[in-house]
């Protein structure tokens, strides 16, 4: 079991994963200690440097990543608190790789692209702490540290919303904090139960290492289901899934632009990533058992989010609700429990981070110029800001899932996976794609078309620096839409391994695949050639 950890260590001696967490943390400390609150440029530069170094390291990791290896790479492990079996264990596989890169790219953009307006020093310090925390969640292989990072990100985000947000920000910040903390409260009990019950079942020392826990699978079936629920609640709040989503529109709307970008871009992924890494991997049986339920929640999220987005008067709120819909797709794909679905979900995590991040940036730019986000106040912006309108169009189309842009690939794979698993879910979810086109195009039409009067007619177009901020995101949108192979082929081994792990751990479960298969699919897994939809549908349709 531990061999997976040591095996993949390759020849990397520099602890790059630790550095990915520590560099932003040190950056935050430096920013906080920098003298002179009257010189915001200095703190901004320091923060930029720290985040750019982190981003560069994440790209280096991407470059060094061994595509053929399904296990954890760049692993590190050091004992932390021996008495509890807690260790500083880090590792990266195809599932977390792109989330790390996404985090590495989005933070510099958020730092460079948005000015907080006041109290620069704490603002940048909090942002960097947030980056360290998010990186930690994606990189850790220890349940204890996972919880630590999962919780610690609340503090900086709480301050970002509460201090630099808009309108009813204190309410939004507190709601965000309490909602998420309440969600994860039971997860701590779940984590402890996992560790201690596994230890007493196997007779080994207590360990929080997820590789050991997952390979062991020592928990009784019902216990594992209960524990899965405690994790699922935490992730569902974070994602957010339908009944526990109400913090999101508030938090997004009131958050400062950078906060929204990070919140949508990476923080929501903590939940979906959690489902993959700690739901499916640790509790395969429970995941299979609850999959129909989770898919249902995903579909509800897709439809509900889309309908709610259609009704919004506030542009930012609209994007927030569209996030709920998009995240619904990710959950749907994840709990399809087949390679296509999980891959599609993963891809959607990255896509949503890029597209929604860009959307929030654009909405932030509009807000900076017009001091309103109300759709009714905006009109005909494309006349005064044609470049912005063009960029908005591309980003919006990516969000809708237009073929040729990144959103399409992810949504297609997700729906394909869901279709193979439970086709009616996929069919309903596909309706969400249409609704996405409806609310986004309608919003675009109202904001950018029509007569331009007053302030709308004189609004400035994108400045050079704003254009540069958006450029990398646009490049990603187009690149990943046209040529997603480099991304997918790096995810595939890890996703296959995860599916195989579920198949191994759950008797009677085989990956739900279609009868008709494309050549590409057949390559990736030669076993279970015959379609077995009926196996996967234990719950009965």
């Amino acid at each position: 079991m531990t061999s997976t950890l040591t095996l993949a260590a390759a020849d990397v001696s520099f602890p790059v994963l630790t550095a990915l967490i520590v560099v932003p943390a040190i950056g935050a400390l430096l920013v906080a200690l920098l003298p002179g609150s009257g010189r915001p440029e200095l703190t901004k530069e320091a923060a930029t440097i720290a985040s750019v170094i982190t981003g560069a390291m994440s790209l280096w990791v991407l470059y060094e990543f061994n595509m053929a290896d399904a296990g954890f790479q760049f692993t590190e492990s050091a004992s932390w608190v021996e008495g509890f079996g807690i260790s500083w264990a880090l590792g990266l596989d195809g599932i977390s790789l792109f989330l790390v890169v996404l985090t590495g790219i989005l933070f510099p953009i958020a730092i460079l692209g948005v000015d907080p307006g006041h109290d620069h020093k704490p603002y940048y310090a909090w942002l960097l702490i947030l980056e360290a925390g998010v990186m930690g969640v994606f990189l850790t292989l220890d349940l204890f540290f996972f919880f630590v990072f999962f919780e610690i990100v609340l503090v900086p985000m709480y301050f970002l919303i509460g201090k630099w947000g808009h309108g009813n920000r204190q309410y939004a910040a507190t709601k965000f904090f309490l909602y998420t903390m309440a969600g994860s409260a039971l997860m701590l009990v779940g984590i402890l139960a996992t560790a201690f019950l596994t230890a007493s079942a196997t007779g080994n020392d207590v360990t929080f290492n997820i590789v050991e826990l997952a390979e062991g699978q020592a928990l009784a079936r019902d216990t594992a289901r209960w524990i899965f629920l405690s994790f699922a609640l935490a992730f569902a709040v974070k994602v957010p899934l339908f009944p526990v989503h109400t913090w999101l529109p508030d938090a997004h709307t009131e958050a400062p632009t950078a906060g929204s970008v990070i919140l949508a871009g990476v923080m929501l992924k903590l939940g979906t990533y959690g489902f993959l890494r700690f739901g499916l991997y640790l509790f395969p049986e429970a995941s299979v058992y609850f999959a129909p339920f989770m898919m249902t929640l995903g579909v509800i999220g897709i439809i509900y989010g889309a309908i709610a987005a259609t009704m919004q008067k506030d542009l930012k709120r609209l994007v927030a609700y569209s996030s709920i819909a998009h995240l619904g797709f990710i959950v749907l794909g994840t709990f399809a429990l087949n390679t296509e679905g999980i891959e599609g979900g993963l891809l959607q995590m990255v896509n949503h981070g890029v597209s929604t991040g860009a959307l929030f940036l654009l909405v932030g730019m509009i807000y900076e110029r017009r001091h309103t986000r109300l759709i009714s106040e905006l009109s005909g912006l494309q006349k005064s800001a044609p470049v912005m309108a063009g960029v908005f169009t591309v980003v919006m189309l990516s969000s809708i899932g237009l073929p040729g842009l990144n959103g399409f690939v992810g949504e297609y794979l997700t729906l394909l996976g869901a279709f193979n698993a439970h086709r009616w879910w996929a069919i309903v979810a596909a309706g969400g794609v249409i609704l996405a086109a409806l609310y986004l195009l309608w919003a675009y039409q109202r904001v950018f078309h029509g007569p331009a009067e007053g302030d709308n007619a004189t609004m400035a177009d994108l400045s050079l620096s704003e254009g540069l901020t958006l450029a990398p995101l646009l490049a990603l949108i187009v690149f990943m839409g046209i040529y997603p192979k480099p991304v997918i082929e790096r995810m595939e081994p890890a996703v296959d391994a995860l599916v195989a792990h579920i198949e191994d751990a759950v008797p009677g479960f085989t990956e739900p695949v279609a009868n008709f298969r494309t050549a590409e699919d057949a390559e990736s897994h030669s076993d279970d050639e015959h379609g077995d939809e009926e196996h996967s549908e234990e719950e009965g349709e």
Partner: protein
Amino acid sequence: MLSLLAQIDIEPIDTPDVDWPVLVPLLVMSVGGILMLTFASILKRLPSSVWSIATVLLSAATAITVIPLWMRVTDTANSASSTLAGSVAFDGFSLFLTVVIAFAVGLTALLSDDYLKREGLEGPELYVLLMMSGAGGIIMAFANDLIVLFLGLEILSIAVYVLAAMHVRKLQSQEAGMKYFILGAFSSAFFLYGIALIYGATGSTNLIDIKNFLSVTVLADDALLLAGFALMLVGLGFKVAAVPFHFWTPDVYQGAPTPVVAYMASGVKAAGFAAIIRVFVLTFEQYRTDWQPVIYVLAVLSLLLGSFLAIVQTDIKRMLAYSSISHAGFILVGVQAATDRGTSAVLFYLAAYAFMVIGSFGVLTVAGGKGDAAQSLEDYQGLSKRSPFLAFALMVFLFSQAGVPLTTGFFAKFGVISAAIDARSFWLGVIAMISAVVGAFLYLRVIVTMFFAGDDDHDSDDGESAGQDDIGDDADVASTDKIDVPLGAQIAIGMCLLVTVVFGIWPGPIDDLAREAIPRLVQESPAALFGN
């Protein structure tokens, strides 16, 4: 005749062996306090700060004298023992708590100096009482005999009754002292009666003898013993402020001088839990099925009532009083497990909580202003602008109390809940986490007040760029004066801050110490069993 006399002379008076080195920490604290009292009555002209410094040095000395003893006790060849006819236990547990209490005394003394000057109460009295109370607490940590335990409890309590009423010109302080005294006296009586019943049931007050007796004897009727448990639990539950023996807490915390409250919440709690662990978890181990459910209920009540009632408070000291009740609940979660893991988690919690609560009340001491006037939540509006240091420190302490990771508070909660899970008390763990979330709401309220309140109006909806220049001069902040943080308070708060953050990120060392302080609880030294 002569021979007879000689015979009498030879007959030695039967005195127990005294392992003097073991008593050194206690002697430093208690004799130090008495000497200070003596000197204070001779040298009246000395500035008040001298006494503060002396207290800090003496408590530091107490902590330092523990080091060689700790070496001795953790050295397997020469490990835990008991002395003074088995009435004083010498083990890692007592040493660990001695250090916690010594720190509580020292840090409180650091806070008190400027407080006393500000309130015009200069003098050595507070320090003497503080040290006596600390000595009582150390006796409780060392006590291996119910009578010794009671002595320690009384020495500790009587000093604290006076301390609570220290602020002679403040009616609330008098009221707090009076309330604490009357209720405390009652609880002591309960405790003493409990001792009597246990003596009746087992024939001894010595914990070793009691344990041995119970392990070889099956009581046909254990009503006496169980009644003794109940009464002792009332007495100790009062000291640690567990629901339903908590009624004094908010009033006393609110009225008593703030540095004294810091001591009450840290030192007194630590001593109280020392007694609970040694008496219940250890001595009455076989009867755990009898007392565990009671502790379970106390824990649940303290957790929920403490955190829910804290929310509705508007006075920050009352708020922290209720929060300390819920912390008592958390510690009881560890006690309820009745395992080594639980005990080490309790020790970690007590150490961690001592620093965060002294830090919190330290900030309150300074921010409270003359006469502890600024106690309501509104008074803390915009504290981040008046004193960034205090606001930041209080934020860390409150996050720590809420159990946010990377603070000691998180690991403390993690420890007690993992002990509960390990003992299969899943629901207790769930309730504890729910209470933690409710508590978080309360702490966030204070943090919102300190950091966000007051800048509500300057950029409500008109863009981030506009807010830059008018950030400093919000009109509705209660007072925009900068707060000067006196040196003593700076040191104390800074130290608490350091401990809370450093050991929050790296809890290993304290956790290891707490673990070493476990297994050597009551151990029968040959002398205690068969001699004397």
